[in-house]
């Protein structure tokens, strides 16, 4: 009844708003965006939901933030590549293996390009993939839990930048190397780069059932810089396109030396052909060493496995695997339109956009009309593959997305704007400024056959005077434009976590229905889990002590522990026995050299405490869980190493 009343009321409000619009519409033109209804377009009333999820990468924060659009409200920061003390990510015993690499534990990375899994060319909302740029890794975030559940390291790669983009049915998530390196790594002079360094393009298969990732194969390429990538779709499904710069193969003063060639390339990779070559046994097994880290939702624990081999295909030796499309001025973004016909090269030192045609490319390949080769890889003729040029659209084009209505939207870093242009006629139809220096932009569903063409989100590197100042370091930002009309309209700008490097968006209803509320206790297979309070106990094994502890409103069991000694290594394995939505508990121990634990209902997590001082030391619940949250506390008695006090534990004994 209440709901119905609310509905009627909101209808009345809507009617009211609409009639306002009508009366104001004539004056709107003169007042611009501020005089229009921008505010109400982004207003999501208390208790109402946003229309879209936006997964915005944190760049140098190493994480992935979850926002709602159009409101720009932040819901969660998902820890991915960086330790997060708030959620004990990389601090508790369960998740430390997630950050393991061939270089050991790496507690940070630079997270760049999130991409949502697809089925039949449309975003399906099952997983988000994101690349770690610095120590090459690809992570998978499960959108039932909004947690990182898998991280795979990429061998033979450096600066994992042209990543992590998925194919139409999430057959592969693809990762390309930005920095070419000696492959395999070896001790050699840097000046001998040319001809000796190599680039690698990695194809990671994704299990359609459980999403399990496996480094299926790598394609060895000349020593260029592989900058960005996008998959073919529709007719061009089976191909993958990578932009390159530094076809000069320079290794120093790159800003000059890698900018000498008038044209670099977009590399068109035929991955279906790669699969054929592998079937024919043309792939070569190469020794490698890389970590594959998997988080199991039932054991609530991650394991890290070192893999020792990778299957390699050499593009110089295998005809038909890769073709090079000359593209002017060190192209950065490499974007494919929803039909799969047009491949846009955003030549970042140019004022123009170059658009290649997939059909023309196939025809040129068929005619074997080549303009020489690079290390055995055929170079197609620029004029043969060119579909069109968007002339003088702005300065410093970086990235393009599409609205599914026949328009492209390109960011221009130097002239700081988003420019809308028409596919086919290549004419500029609108432009809007960005505040300031826009990098990527995102249309929800943008990397798919069917973008949701309501909004575009521009992500800015610099904000200067846009917000209240916060000392020398100020926030970066995202700006939301309404693109449902002929003209773009700036609706909102909001601060972001870290660098909003790139984002992926999806209609909320596709994802929210799968979001888990709790972990089921009966499915908890953690090695040290307890599912009832009766199982709570403390066990000693030499100097190692294992506390099997439970938490439920509003007490720990046990909450008094005696018989711990200085020099012990105490593992607190804590299970949240709640089975109610949104009732996490936390735990922290005075002086523990680690973070708190924040444990969801039905979950078990572990922290280690090595008491160094005799005394009675308290622990407490860190998440305000209930009316008796302040009473949710306990004590551990720590005796000298020589003490012979028996191990004992209790709850509620007087």
């Amino acid at each position, binding site marked *: 009844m209440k709901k119905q009343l609310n509905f009627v009321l909101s209808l009345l409000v809507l009617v009211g708003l609409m009639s306002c619009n009508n009366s104001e519409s004539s004056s709107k033109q003169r007042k611009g965006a501020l005089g229009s209804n921008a505010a109400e377009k982004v207003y999501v009333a208390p208790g109402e939901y946003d229309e879209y999820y936006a997964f915005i990468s944190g760049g140098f924060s190493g994480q992935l933030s979850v926002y709602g659009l159009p409101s720009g409200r932040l819901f969660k920061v998902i820890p991915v590549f960086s330790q997060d003390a708030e959620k004990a990510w990389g601090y508790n015993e369960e998740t430390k293996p997630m950050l393991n690499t061939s270089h050991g534990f790496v507690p940070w990375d630079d997270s760049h390009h999130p991409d949502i899994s697809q089925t039949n060319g449309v975003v399906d909302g099952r997983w988000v993939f994101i690349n770690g740029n610095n120590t090459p890794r690809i992570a998978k975030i499960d959108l039932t839990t909004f947690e990182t559940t898998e991280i795979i390291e990429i061998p033979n790669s450096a600066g994992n930048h042209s990543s992590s983009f998925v194919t139409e049915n999430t057959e592969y998530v693809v990762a390309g190397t930005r920095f070419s390196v000696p492959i395999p790594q070896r001790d050699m002079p840097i000046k001998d780069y040319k001809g000796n360094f190599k680039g690698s393009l990695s194809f990671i298969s994704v299990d359609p059932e459980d999403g399990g990732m496996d480094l299926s194969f790598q394609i060895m390429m000349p020593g260029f810089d592989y900058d960005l990538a996008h998959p073919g779709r529709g007719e061009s499904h089976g191909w993958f396109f990578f932009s390159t710069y530094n076809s000069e193969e320079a290794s120093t003063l790159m800003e000059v030396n890698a900018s000498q060639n008038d044209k670099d390339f977009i590399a068109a990779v035929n991955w279906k052909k790669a699969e054929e070559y592998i079937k024919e046994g043309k792939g070569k097994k190469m020794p490698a060493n890389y970590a594959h880290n998997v988080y199991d939702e039932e054991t609530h624990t991650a394991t890290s496995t070192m893999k020792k081999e990778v299957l390699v295909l050499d593009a110089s030796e295998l005809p038909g695997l890769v073709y090079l499309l000359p593209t002017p001025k060190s192209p950065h973004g490499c974007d494919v339109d929803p039909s799969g016909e047009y491949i846009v090269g955003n030549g970042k030192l140019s004022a123009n956009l170059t658009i290649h045609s997939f059909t023309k490319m196939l025809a040129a390949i068929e005619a074997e009309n080549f303009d020489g080769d690079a290390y055995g890889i055929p170079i197609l003729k620029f004029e043969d593959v060119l579909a069109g040029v968007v002339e003088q659209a702005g300065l410093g084009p970086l990235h393009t997305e599409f609205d599914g209505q026949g328009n492209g939207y390109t960011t221009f870093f130097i002239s700081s704007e988003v420019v809308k242009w028409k596919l086919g006629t290549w004419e500029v139809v609108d432009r809007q400024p960005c505040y300031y220096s826009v990098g990527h932009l995102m249309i929800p569903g943008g990397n798919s056959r069917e973008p949701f063409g309501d909004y575009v989100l521009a992500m800015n590197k610099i904000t200067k005077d846009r917000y209240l100042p916060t000392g020398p370091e100020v926030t970066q930002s995202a700006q939301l434009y309404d693109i449902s009309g002929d003209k773009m309209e700036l609706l909102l700008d909001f601060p972001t976590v870290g660098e909003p490097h790139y984002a992926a968006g999806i209609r909320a209803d596709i994802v929210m229905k799968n979001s888990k509320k709790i972990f089921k206790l009966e499915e908890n297979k953690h090695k040290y889990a307890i599912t009832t309070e009766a199982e709570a106990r403390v066990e000693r094994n030499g100097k190692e002590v294992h506390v099997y502890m439970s938490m439920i409103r509003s007490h720990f069991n046990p909450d008094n522990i005696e018989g711990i000694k200085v020099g012990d290594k105490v593992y607190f394995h804590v299970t949240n026995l709640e*089975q109610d939505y949104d009732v996490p508990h936390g735990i922290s121990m005075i002086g523990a050299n680690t973070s708190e634990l924040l444990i969801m209902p039905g979950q078990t997590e572990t922290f280690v405490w090595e008491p160094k001082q005799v005394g009675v030391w308290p622990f407490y619940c860190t998440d305000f869980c209930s009316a008796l949250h302040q009473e949710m506390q306990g004590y551990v008695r720590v005796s000298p190493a020589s003490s012979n006090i028996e191990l004992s534990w209790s709850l509620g004994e007087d």
Partner: protein
Amino acid sequence: MSLGALLILGLFVFPLWNITLEAPQYPIPLGMDIYINDFADTHPHDIKNINLMNHYVGMKYIPESIPEFKIFPVVIIVMSILGLLIGIKAGYKWFLVWFSIMAILAAAGIYDFYLWEHDYGHNLDPKAIMKFTNPDGSIMGFQPPLFGTKDILNFTAHSYPQLGAYLMAGGMGLSLLAFFIGRKEKRASN
């Protein structure tokens, strides 16, 4: 008459009664369905969560099982068989007898439910975390309503019959209807 006797078997499939608790923290309310042989969660883990809430005021846990869960099913089966036999073999006056026995049993059941509710709401742990008193100084009870809706602290409790109860009432109604039809026919034939 026979249909009426069969309808009461619906009690084995559908809940008899439901108690639902609403609170600001529970936009999806907590609920318990009462069957003739079980207490069941309306949503998974609801009873566990009701117990968790109630322990703050010293209420006992809702038991896994109560003796009534053994007695009620037997009574219903016996009454159903009896009803069927009466329907096939006996005269219309027996229909009224069956209806009367059912009515007495139902009343007894409701009274039993009330007694349990009263004990559940008033027999509180003396060490309860939170003790509330009524304006007159007596200890506040937390008995859910027998029928209807009632505010208890931050909760609004609803207690209403469910499909099982309606089927039983329908079955009883049919037996009464059968009685009247039988009587009418008898008179007509006289």
